[in-house]
């Protein structure tokens, strides 16, 4: 087979198709709603050295995880990697990147007894042990409290499952059936991917196959560099206060060939679980970088080659073992938004105003009143996105951290979780107005039906609200309200293991996106439309739009 560009293109398309197929297979067979509905998962294919070649759909924050896991496994196991092996890891200091709930499975792909690539996936499992149901607790101070640590081990040796490992993993979960189902879904997914890659290498030859991966990555690098040259050059800096009073700092230096994100000047790691590993921080920088330079072409190792990230070990963005990292996602979305915000005023054509910018991770559990079985809701929330020149922001979509992610329908939630969804509607609280308005956030009411339930949640952008551009108004802010059966109300942004009982209502309130441009310049027809649709009161329209 020849190395002509068309053949390479065809192989690249087929590798992409394999990553997509791995994703589809896992989605359809997973047991946890966070995987099959929320799609808190990702799939990827790397070359023999663990450089990412292609990713399935899913969430952008997982795109850059799998290469780091595979590279760790390669380093750890060296020659002891055999055909039919499947590895598992979840620990950020052993190739796991995120938090212990996220199990990464990776399988080497062989052709003629040589490794030609890897298939891997990552998914949020409902419970991996630890001090709290769902394994995530705001009270955790070290990783040992957040579940079973898997330091990159073989789960399957040459096609034979190591039952001891499987037993240890399932025995450490509060929801062993779910975990087992989800792990098998992940195994099926990497096996399907491996089969497709073997066929491709067999058909076109290993050399051509490898060359296709190589040129694909070079193409990613070329794309990135070409776009990089179009950005304004120089060093940009931002200090941003946080909800908890700390201040984060970023300095970004853009040149023709490099994009350097300097996060060294940041607070020490947190005593609690809102820390991220250095790898996690790199991934956030990758996400902004990819959106900034070229959101269209597929991401691979080459796409990120011009980017460098500087961190300080022991800081919140480069936590040391054994720091707790359960709520890493909230720290990640903060650094993601920090970089975005730092550059937006300088590159407004590529970066809209701030969005609700929190995972708004919500965990509700208890006993299902109709089945008597344990239920656990683990879900990110929808919120409003910021406006940009010429267009209002989107109402109610997932944050920049999530992507091809779906919310849970009320009808399914009521059946599966045995609670009532009293309302799921747009949040029309004031905020986010501009010449172009931020999109509306969400109000979601869960009414608890049994005793002995619990709520854990972690919301940021509660105090420091989504940031506007060009004179727009900031967003309304994210918050959780608990309305007790007796009518009393409590507000939370971070809460851990709060007791819930029958007829308590958990009200999730997410922010509007921020506005763009002077609200007084908003087109009067648009304002009238907002009033007719109940998005704004006539009084507020008078105040902010001079309507």
């Amino acid at each position: 087979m020849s190395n002509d560009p068309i053949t390479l293109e065809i192989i690249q398309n087929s590798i992409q198709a394999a990553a997509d197929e791995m994703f589809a297979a896992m989605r359809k067979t997973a047991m946890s709603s966070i995987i099959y509905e929320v799609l808190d998962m990702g799939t990827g294919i790397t070359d023999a050295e663990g450089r990412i070649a292609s990713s399935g759909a899913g969430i952008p924050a997982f795109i850059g995880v799998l290469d780091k896991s595979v590279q760790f496994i390669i380093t750890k196991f060296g020659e002891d990697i055999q055909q039919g092996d499947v590895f598992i890891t979840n620990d950020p200091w052993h190739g796991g990147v995120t938090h212990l709930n996220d199990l990464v499975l990776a399988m080497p792909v062989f052709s003629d007894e040589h490794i030609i690539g890897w298939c891997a996936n990552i998914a949020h499992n409902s419970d991996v042990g630890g001090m709290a149901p769902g394994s995530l607790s705001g009270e955790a101070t070290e990783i040992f409290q957040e579940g079973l640590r898997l330091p990159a081990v073989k789960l399957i040796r040459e096609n034979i499952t190591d039952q001891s490992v499987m037993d240890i993993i399932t025995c450490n979960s509060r929801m062993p059936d779910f975990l087992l189902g989800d792990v098998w879904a992940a195994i099926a997914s990497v096996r399907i991917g491996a089969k497709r890659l073997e066929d491709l290498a067999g058909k076109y030859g290993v050399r051509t196959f490898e060359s296709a991966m190589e040129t694909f990555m070079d193409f990613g690098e070329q794309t990135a560099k070409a776009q990089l040259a179009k950005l304004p050059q120089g060093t940009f800096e931002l200090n941003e206060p946080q909800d908890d009073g700390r201040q984060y700092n970023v300095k970004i230096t853009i040149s023709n060939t490099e994009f350097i994100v300097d996060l060294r000047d940041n607070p020490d790691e947190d005593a609690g679980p809102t820390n991220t590993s250095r790898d996690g921080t790199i991934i956030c920088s990758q996400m902004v970088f990819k959106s900034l330079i070229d959101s269209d072409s597929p991401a691979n190792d080459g796409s990120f080659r011009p980017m460098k990230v500087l961190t300080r070990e022991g800081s919140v963005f480069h936590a040391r073992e054994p720091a707790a990292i359960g709520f890493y996602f909230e720290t990640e979305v903060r650094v993601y938004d920090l970089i975005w915000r730092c550059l937006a005023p300088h590159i407004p054509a590529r970066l809209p105003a701030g969005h609700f910018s929190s995972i708004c991770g919500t965990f509700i559990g208890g006993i299902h009143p109709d089945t008597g079985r344990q239920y656990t809701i683990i879900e990110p929330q929808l919120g409003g996105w910021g406006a940009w020149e010429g267009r209002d922001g989107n109402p109610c979509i997932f944050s920049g951290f999530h992507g091809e992610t779906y919310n849970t329908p009320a009808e399914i939630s009521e059946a599966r979780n045995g609670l009532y969804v009293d309302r799921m509607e747009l949040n029309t609280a004031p905020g986010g107005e501009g010449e172009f308005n931020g999109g509306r956030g969400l109000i979601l009411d869960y009414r608890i039906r049994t005793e002995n339930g619990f709520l854990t949640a972690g919301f940021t952008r509660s105090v420091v609200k989504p940031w506007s551009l060009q004179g727009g108004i900031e967003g309304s802010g994210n918050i959780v309200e608990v309305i007790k059966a007796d009518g009393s109300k409590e507000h939370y942004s971070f809460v851990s293991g709060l007791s819930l009982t029958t007829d308590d209502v958990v009200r999730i309130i997410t922010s509007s996106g921020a506005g763009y441009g002077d609200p007084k310049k908003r087109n009067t027809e648009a304002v009238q439309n907002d009033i007719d649709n109940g998005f704004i009161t006539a009084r507020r329209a008078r105040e902010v739009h001079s309507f």
Partner: protein
Amino acid sequence: MSSLPLRVATDVGGTFTDLVAITEQSDGMKIITAKVDTTPPDFDKGVLNVLEAGGVAAQQIDFLVHGTTVVINALTERKGVTVGLITTEGFRDTLEIARGNRPDFFNLHYEKPLPFVPRSLRTEVPGRMTYKGEERTPLDLSELPSIIKQFRHNGVQAVAISLLHAYANTQHEEAVLAGVKKLWPEVSVVASHQITREWREYERTSTTVLSAYVQPVAASYLSQLNDSLVSQGLASSPYIMQSNCGVDSLSATSQIPITMVESGPASGFWGAAELGKMINEPDILALDIGGTTAKCSLIEGGEVRIMTDYWIERSRKSAGYPIMVPVVDLVEIGNGGGSIAWVDDFGKLHVGPRSAGAVPGPAAYGKGGLNATTTDANLWLGRINPDYFCGGALQADMDAAKSALQAIGNKLGVSVDEAARGIIRIANNNMVNALKLVSLNRGHDTRDFTLLAFGGGGPMHAVALAQELQVKKVVIPTAASVFSAWGMMMSDLRRDYFVTHLADLVEGAASRIEDVFREVEQNARNTFVAEGVDEARISFLRYGKFRYQNQEHTTEVALSGTVTDTALSEIAESFRTAYEREYTYRLDAPVEMVGVHLVARAEVGKLQMVPSKLGDTDASAAVKGTRGVDFALDGKHLATIFDGDKLTPGMAFDGPAVVEDSGSTLVVHPQNNLSVDAYRNIHIRLGAES
């Protein structure tokens, strides 16, 4: 023209209105085809024109099936009516919240699809059902008069009703429906349970809203068509092609027209299943290549797969809109004869999804099109005959084709020949990936399947795709370019009922499952009988949707006979087997039923094709000549050119060859062996091993 009754299918597309008519004469069956321009906004004119063009008088017609793109066009062109929505208190924004996904996830300027009903026309009524179908809060209709008043005031033309958990208990929706009809008898109104009984409130609400949105448009289209045909002497109303591969009565379709949304592709895939049964090829990969898109579907054991997971305008760039109606399971890609080839900023060649359409069309049309298309590449490589372009209707402008291909070649730094070959290979690869999505990706081995290719472009690419996928063989049906219309004539009256019903497969569950099937069957039977269908001709197929406990996505399993407790373990086992084939493993976990799928069918006097006698294998009478053809990966060869219209049953020959008829061009690669069967279908065996 024969005086015997005629069976006729008319298919109204965006550009052309097609006719296929079949008559039984003393010397066998005869197929008449005709094509005229579509005539918006009075589409019935085009239908009358095409009947005239085919020499078919309305009073001769025994059975008329009609297919139309009116629904999908009204949706994609936003030409429906103003809809008002009535929903459950607390859920007026469901339609706008949608599912919150961002498919184009690195794009910070992603634009979420706008709802079809603005917030001001989305209204709420108090009252709640539970997921078990029990009333939690009584329905309160005290605000209904003011809702209706507001709708009237705001120019609402159709009302959609979608309440929470209406799939489990329809009573509240029925009460709202009755209330609306009483207060506003002349308005078009539809409730979600009339269309679907499956859960997921956003999908069900979207479906109901979109049905309301197109209902007045579709109803007026259908009534105008009916009046026109009846005034010409048509004895009974036409049947209307549906997305579930069946036909339905004109009156039922006028009520819930959304079920027509994908009727175009459905008829072709139904035709593929029916043809497969006729020629003893029950396992088929069906491929329909038109001017703008290619569509494919997998048929197993002679059965098409019908699903309710259908979305419009959904892509890697957009979340789209769900329509939860039974639609044949298909994959569609923007890759047809008119697809434009282009080179991106980094020297990579792409084909589609943009199409040159009919105007200006491929460069070779000579109508000013500057872009090279798949058709231009096929012409350049000698695969399409420039002197018999579009069935001889057009002389191909080869200079224009060459300069368009040259432009691609220059960007890639290759010759015109290589550019043309590259375009064909990329286009083929796009289609191979689509075919894999419906086969390999679902655990089917393509070597067990026959590729049946139709549409104007199907025969052109079929063999190359078949070789890549290593299918058993290729079949090209007679009159391949109008095969979809043929498929319509083979359809039965068919309705697919999906009802969400949760049940653990344990002792005692069977009787309740059986009750659900019986209730749906009774309902289906009553509806058919009320429409004048003879009860004896009604038959049912039962399917169950199952999953392992705690999973979400289901696998459908065919059920035979009454559901009894003793049969449950067998049912669970057939689920485990089906699941393992698709996903490679089985679990010990309990199996749960999530819903039933009932197919209700009534034969409407289906066409029986009559085989002809096989004649001599010698095909020399059909030879038109020879020419050099570039087979891309299989090299350049001198190919024998055959006149497709002169091929008769029994003829056989080997590739390299090209078979040309007025609607399509079949490319037969070296080492292929071709034969014509008793129904004039062409069978191609691929190579040495077969």
